Each structure stands twice: as C-alpha cells, then as structure tokens.
C-alpha cells in the first residue's frame, strides 16, 4: 500500500485492509466457483502455487487499494 499511495499507511488503514482481506477470503472459500472466475481474468497466467481463493481475495484487495483517492490523486 505504501508504494501505491506514497504514504506510510496508518494502523487503522492497515487494519481496515486486513479485515477486508479476511472477509473476501471467507467469501471466496465459500464460493470457489466465483474465485475461479475472478482468477481467470487477465492476460498473465495465474501462478499455480496460489489457490484461486487466495488470488481472488488479493485481487479484491488490489482493487480496493488502486481505487483509493490517495492513489488516484498524486499528493
């Protein structure tokens, strides 16, 4: 997150992202079909060492971070 925002993340934000990651993990573990669909998107081939659920959860985390105002608006 520091790279994307050029700021050191505060503890509250780190906690927010962690809690979001956990929620997404749980959702994708409960729905592996959805995880596979999301993991399939993209030009690069998915790393076979990572499960689809893990990849999908982190994809959503990346989606969250890349949409932050701090990322979209360079300070």
């Amino acid at each position, binding site marked *: 997150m520091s790279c994307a925002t050029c700021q050191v993340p*505060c503890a*509250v*934000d780190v906690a*927010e*992202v962690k*809690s*979001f990651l956990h*929620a*997404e993990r749980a*959702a994708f573990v409960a*729905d592996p*079909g*959805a*995880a*596979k*669909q*999301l*993991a*399939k*998107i993209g030009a690069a081939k998915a790393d076979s060492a990572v499960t689809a659920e893990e990849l*999908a959860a982190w994809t*959503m985390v990346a*989606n*969250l971070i890349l*949409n*932050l*105002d*701090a990322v*979209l*608006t360079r*300070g």
Partner: protein
Amino acid sequence: MHATNDFVRQITRRHFFGQTGLGLGTAALTSLLARDGMPLGGTLPGVPLGGALPGVPHFAPKAKRAIWLFMAGAPSQIDTFDYKPKLRELFDTDLPESIRKGQRLTTMTSGQKRFPIAPSIYDFKQYDNGGDGAYISELLPYTAQMVKDIAIVRSVYTEAINHDPAITFIATGREQPGRPSLGSWLSYGLGSENQDLPGFAVMTPTWTGRKEAQALYNRLWGAGMLASKHAGVALRSQGDPVLFLKNPDGVDAASRRRMLDSLRRMNARQQEQVGDPEIQNRIAQYELAYRMQSSVPELTDLSGEPASTAEMYGPDANKPGTFAASCVLARRMIERGVRFVQMFHRGWDQHFNLTGDLPKQCRDIDQPAWALVQDLKQRGLLDETLVIWSGEFGRTAYCQGKLTRKNYGRDHHPRCFTMWMAGGGVRAGAVYGETDDFSYNIVDQPVHVRDLNATILHCLGIDHERLTIPHQGLDVRLTGVEPARVVRELLV
C-alpha cells in the same frame, strides 16, 4: 461549494462536535442537515448527490426537469424554420454590403470572390399554431405537426463564429473553457430527485449525414468550479451505456459493497488528514456508480415498453445509439427523476452538400423530437418538463463553395438562428423574433444565448442572478457578467 469555504466548514464542524471531522457526531449532523435539505458533500451513502441549495428554487418553478436536444454543428435555419421567399428571386446575386454590415467571415469563405445568395430549395408551408401560423420547411414534417405545442424563436444570436467557442458559450455561458455547464448548475442548485441515477445525463447519438463531424468535448457537460459530482454523466451510444459498470465475473454485489464500504472509510480518513473536499465528491460518485449498477440496466431495458413507443418514435427507436433511441431513454430518465438530459446530435455543419446531408440529419431528429414531446404530453409530464431544441449558431444565406440550382453549402452565421422550446412554463404556439429578408440580421426581438439560458433557468424556478458561486473574486453565474434578460414573452 467553494473549496476554501468547504474546508473552513469542516474545521468548524469538527470543532463544534469536539471530534475528528467524519466521526459519529458529524455523521449525525450530516443526516440531520440532509433531511432538512441543507447541502453537504453527500458523504452519507443515503444522499450521494445531495439535495437543493437552501432557498432554491427561488420561486415556484413551472418545470422540474429539462431536456436539451442539441444539434451540434449548427442547423441551417434558412432551410428549416426561417422562411425567406424573397431569396428565390435573388439566386446567385451577391449578398449586399448593406446587409452584411462588416460581419466577420470565417477562413472558410473569406477567400471567396463572391457571396452569392443560395435560396433554400425546400418548400415551406404555414401550419396552424393557434395564432398567426408558423412556417416550417418540408424537411421537418413531424415538427410541423406540433407547432401548437412549441414556441419558436427565430432571433437567437451569439458572437462566436466557430463551433468550439460557440457550443462552449451556449452550454456554459462563456466562450473560454472552465465554466460549469447548465446541467451542472441545475444539479448544484436543485439537487437530484433520484439518488440512484446521475442528476445530469448526457447522450451523444449517431447521425446519418456526412460522417466527418465536429468533435464534442466533455467540458460541455463539465462542472467547472462546482463540485465535480455535478458533472454530466455521458452514456455511450454503442455497447454498454456505462463502461465497466458491471462487476467482473466472480465478484458479486456483496463483495463490491464490502470493497466500497472499506474504500469509503479509508477515503474519509484521507480527507480528514488532507482536507480536500474533492474526496467527498469521489466518495459520492463511487456510491452513485454502485447504485447505477442496478439503475442503469433497469433504465436501458426497453422490454417493458409498449409497441406504441417504437411506432411513435420511428424506425430508429429500437436501434441503440440512434437519436430516436436516445429520445426514448430521455423520456425514461425524466420519468425516473433525472434533472437534466442533454443530447448532442452531431453532423449539422453543412458547409457543402447541404441538399445531400441536411435531409438525412432532419430525418434523424424530426419524428423522434416530435414523439418525445407527444410522449411527455400523453404521460402528463410535459407540464413539468422543459424541452429545448437548438444548435450553436446559424448559417449564411450566401453559398459556401459551388452554387448550383440543386446544391449549395452555407458557412457559419452567429447573427441569427432558430430554436424552439416546449413544456413547463413555455407559451405554446408562440413564434418570437424576426430576421431580415436574408435571414442575416435580426430586425425584431433579439434573444442572446445568455437570455436563452436566463429564460431556461427561470422556467426551472431559478433567478439567474442569484444562483452563483464565488470564484477568483467573482460571483460566477451561468449567464456571465453582462446583463441578461428572461424573455417573458415566451413564457406563460
């Protein structure tokens, strides 16, 4: 709101509640004020676009919403509405200097040795409008059927002689870029009636005249120095109306909601640290985007429309992206409380091959524009909706390029053009303003584009001098710094 004012207000609220800017206390204040109709950044998920400014509308409006059918490129008034039979005898004679009076020329005709008159080859008939009658050319047979419903103004004028400044002028009140558009002013002043759709929607339909046409710019529906959430949202004419609205495969609404909630909290903390009011706009627009994931598919799903819709709007009604299809969508948007819909139909810049292209352009819009007015009338919405039809300037009586009996071209002409209005507040059947025999100079009842905008705002209950925003020491308003009048003779 003005950036510094917003920042100061945030500090005051923080101080008043004794805690950080977007904590519980401010959220409570936000919801209380939103309920009372006071404007705030719209950080609450419930009110992304916000309500009206206090005291707006300034008086009881006749119309609550408006649709502007914008004919980008400038339709020739001489071949459509401004009947000049005396020009028939003047074919291929030069435009007298006594008429031209030194009007500047564009570089497209300034090199011509002659300025021969090109009378319209189209026939005009007079139609009963409940008054003195209105002349309409054979190119607009459907519009001719509704002269009783519309007010025609033949004496609109501007100073701008090229498209970019002229269209920017009529859309934003100034020839130079940077000012808010009419739709943004309406969103700012009146707020949105439907928090699930944009308050200001824009469509850019296809056209069948010559393919090469003047470009459009998103500053024409930009918010200028108003909060960016008031900018128009343009729906695409081909494919998905809004790009990337749908969630990717595997992402459901719950996941998206979780992401947006986390995003909002993190952005809110960012706003506390940095104090940039634009972050509120970003939060509001993401919230609107989420709602649009459901509201836009519902809006664009025409399966529930009766068969009479396609019959009324014509053969293009079921072809997505056409002007006719956009008119159907415009009516649906009005039904769903969108405050302002602006449609930019391109291709009207008939510098040459007018008799080849203009009939096609007219056919694109004639029946659908008529259908839109009738449809609103039948649904009981016309009394509350203002419909506007115009280009950005007029066209010359003299020919640009080669003049023949069968074909000609016309250059830009700022000194007079024709527009029409219908609906809430408009005096139906009126014909206002007159030009000379050459459709070159206005001889009676001139209406500057400023006056037109003042009149439109008036129909919507807004005093154009009172809806302002402080910016660089000026109280900026849509009608600019020069005097502008509401044309009361056009209104009931």
